[in-house]
């Protein structure tokens, strides 16, 4: 599976006259997208995953202002090979998850290093180094995910988000204040580790002195900024929200179950909260030296993580604080905005807290504005943002809407359980939810009102009972009350006559037989789908990716359709998709237009 990638990596190194690209960073962005696709096929991806951190770092590098396009050998062939791996992986289940994840990390590490050494701009290079370091850590000194690492991933994400407006005083102030909080945590943890003998004293002392020096540099930065005139625009607010949310995660009470060593380990792995990137953003000359030393010390730690000995450090290095109950929502991956496909980056049903919803609405509004604005006369919300970055904002806006919808998707399943025409109804509700996610105004009620708004929207859609095609939906309520009795059977009853009952039973038996004949790999996801389980749950239960589950269910339905349609002895049984009712046909067409299949249809399969 990886042969083509290996071949292309070798070519990249040895080819005498390789095809060139005029913009290495654009090539690299596409490559990261392919890497993330493969990672997604391997399983759910968390914010703290090295590939997610690589995606964030790439976003930061791409967003670095005034970076000239880089002429370099093209990554196109590598990218194509990686895309093939991604497709192959989505279609197979017999791969070795652990081995492929390790291979992916190695390939990504090699590639990001290759790109970094060819990037002349120091600031973009620092971003790429952050991604490279994350992969380096995952390969050479793997660590489990921790609350601190997730918070630090959110911090890196915030730094990438503010990169386009890095010169704005509000950014310098928020980043300096936020990083001071991280440095304070780090100082306390290193100090405790030194006292307890968990860190070598010379190493801890060097770290502490550089932390103090960097803090003084931040003090200088803050002293130069007049905070009284900040925070007036929507861009300011978006910046403050992103940074503020990350800072709050890092300054809140530590997870009770998380040992201090794990927190310190996460901080060291992150180069103590990406000190070099922070120094670049704040622009204070005296910060660079201390940040570079901290980065070196962090790399030194990465080469020998055993220097942090497993000694039980005292807890409560930061004062206890009740963490926002839903703050976890903000920790979820948003790392690859603009790189990853528009799937929700949060677990469906994640309860978002107010700040997260507000941040998503901000991103949505910025995206909408960026999609329609005139670069010659930008609206207030886009002033100061390079129009070349607007497509990125559009992508982030779409991602924000996908996340808003993802947070309330279980409502759709709750509303449509045991509902006739469930696929149609759910499709319609998803459309309604997308509209609601675009319409929702957090300032009219409160950000937390999103869930209620979404619930009312889909409830309304459900109660209207008529879809866009004008077809009246069947209600799930009980049978119509009997008005007139005629012998044993009421003439206008919706209850079937005995012949229909027999016919229906035969049809059901036929379907059951056809389902039983399906191979297990298709039958299991289909049955789970019939039971109304969400696609993600099906994928998780059966141990493969969501797209694979989707494809297998579609394949199972196709096989059933063929199996049941070719039997002439089944009488006048008509498959749903063969209906000649023009209204139903139109409804089906509208549905398919609104929700095109994510999997390309095999031309060899029977037409739907």
């Amino acid at each position: 599976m990886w042969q083509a990638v290996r071949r292309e990596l070798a070519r990249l190194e040895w080819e005498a006259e390789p095809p060139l690209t005029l913009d290495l960073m654009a090539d690299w962005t596409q490559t990261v997208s392919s890497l993330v696709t493969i990672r997604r096929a391997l399983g759910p991806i968390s914010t703290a995953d090295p590939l997610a951190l690589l995606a964030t770092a790439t976003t930061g590098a791409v967003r670095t202002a005034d970076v000239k396009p880089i002429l370099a050998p093209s990554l196109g062939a590598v990218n194509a090979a990686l895309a093939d791996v991604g497709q192959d992986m989505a279609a197979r289940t017999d791969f070795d998850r652990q081995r492929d994840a390790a291979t992916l990390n190695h390939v990504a590490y090699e590639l990001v290093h290759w790109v970094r050494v060819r990037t002349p701009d120091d600031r973009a290079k620092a971003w790429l180094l952050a991604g490279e370091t994350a992969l380096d850590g995952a390969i050479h000194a793997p660590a489990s995910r921790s609350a601190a690492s997730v918070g630090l991933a959110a911090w890196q994400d915030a730094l990438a988000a503010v990169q386009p407006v890095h010169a704005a005083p509000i950014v310098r102030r928020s980043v300096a204040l936020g990083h001071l909080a991280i440095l304070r945590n780090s100082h306390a943890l290193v100090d405790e580790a030194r006292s307890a003998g968990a860190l070598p004293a010379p190493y801890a002392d060097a770290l502490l002195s550089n932390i103090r020096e960097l803090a003084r540099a931040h003090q200088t930065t803050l002293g130069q900024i007049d905070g009284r005139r900040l925070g007036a625009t929507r861009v300011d607010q978006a910046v403050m929200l992103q940074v503020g949310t990350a800072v709050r995660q890092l300054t809140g009470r530590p997870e009770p179950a998380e040992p201090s060593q794990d927190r310190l380990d996460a901080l060291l792995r992150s180069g103590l909260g990406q000190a070099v990137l922070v120094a670049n953003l704040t622009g204070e000359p005296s910060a660079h030296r201390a940040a570079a030393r901290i980065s070196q010390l962090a790399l030194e730690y990465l080469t020998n993580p055993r220097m942090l000995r497993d000694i039980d450090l005292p807890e409560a290095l930061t004062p206890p604080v009740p963490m926002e109950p839903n703050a976890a929502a903000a920790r979820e991956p948003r790392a690859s905005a603009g790189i990853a496909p528009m799937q929700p980056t949060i677990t469906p049903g994640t309860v978002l807290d107010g700040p997260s919803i507000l941040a998503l609405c901000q991103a949505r509004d910025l995206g909408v504005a960026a999609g329609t604005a005139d670069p010659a006369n930008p609206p207030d919300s886009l002033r100061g943002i390079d129009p070349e970055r607007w497509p990125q904002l559009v992508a982030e806006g779409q991602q924000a809407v996908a996340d808003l919808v993802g947070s309330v998707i279980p409502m759709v399943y709750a509303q449509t359980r045991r509902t006739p025409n469930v696929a149609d109804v759910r499709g319609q509700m998803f459309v309604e939810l997308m509209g609601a996610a675009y319409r929702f105004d957090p300032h009219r009620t409160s950000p937390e009102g999103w869930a209620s708004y979404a619930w009312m929207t889909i409830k309304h859609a459900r109660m209207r009972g008529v879809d866009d095609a004008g077809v009246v939906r069947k209600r799930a309520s009980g049978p119509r009350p009997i008005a007139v009795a005629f012998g044993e059977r009421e003439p206008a009853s919706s209850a079937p006559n005995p012949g229909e009952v027999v016919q229906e039973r035969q049809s059901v038996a036929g379907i059951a037989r056809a389902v039983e004949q399906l191979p297990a790999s298709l039958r299991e996801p289909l049955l789970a789908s019939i039971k109304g389980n969400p696609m993600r749950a099906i994928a998780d239960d059966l141990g493969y990716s969501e797209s694979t589950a989707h494809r297998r269910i579609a394949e199972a339905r196709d096989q059933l359709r063929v199996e049941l349609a070719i039997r002439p002895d089944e009488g006048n049984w008509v498959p749903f998709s063969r209906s000649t009712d023009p209204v139903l046909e139109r409804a089906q067409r509208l549905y398919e237009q609104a929700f095109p299949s994510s999997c390309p249809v095999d031309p060899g399969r029977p037409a739907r």
Partner: protein
Amino acid sequence: MTGMPMPAESIAKVDLLLGRATMLTTDRWDDLAAMIHEAMGISLLMAATHLSSRPVDVPGLTRLTALECVEHALREVQTWDLALAAELPDLARLRVLLADVRRESDSAVGRRG
């Protein structure tokens, strides 16, 4: 929904004051400074979430000491309606932190005196 009016300008003032207090305590690595930094983290997020429609100012801000900044911030926070707790989940924590910083500073001053 409480429908309470949000004191956005007052929140911005608190953010300004605690930002200043944080800056002034950058070279302190004790628990008191840690509490100020935590309070700053709360006010930073509050100010971002509830943006003031116009720039705010605190007269004489540059002449204030860290403790004075905290005291001003505490007074400001104590003017907020307690019913805002529903919309500002960290409100209680902010009040406690600021009060603790003030009390600890007083006792430290007292011990020194």
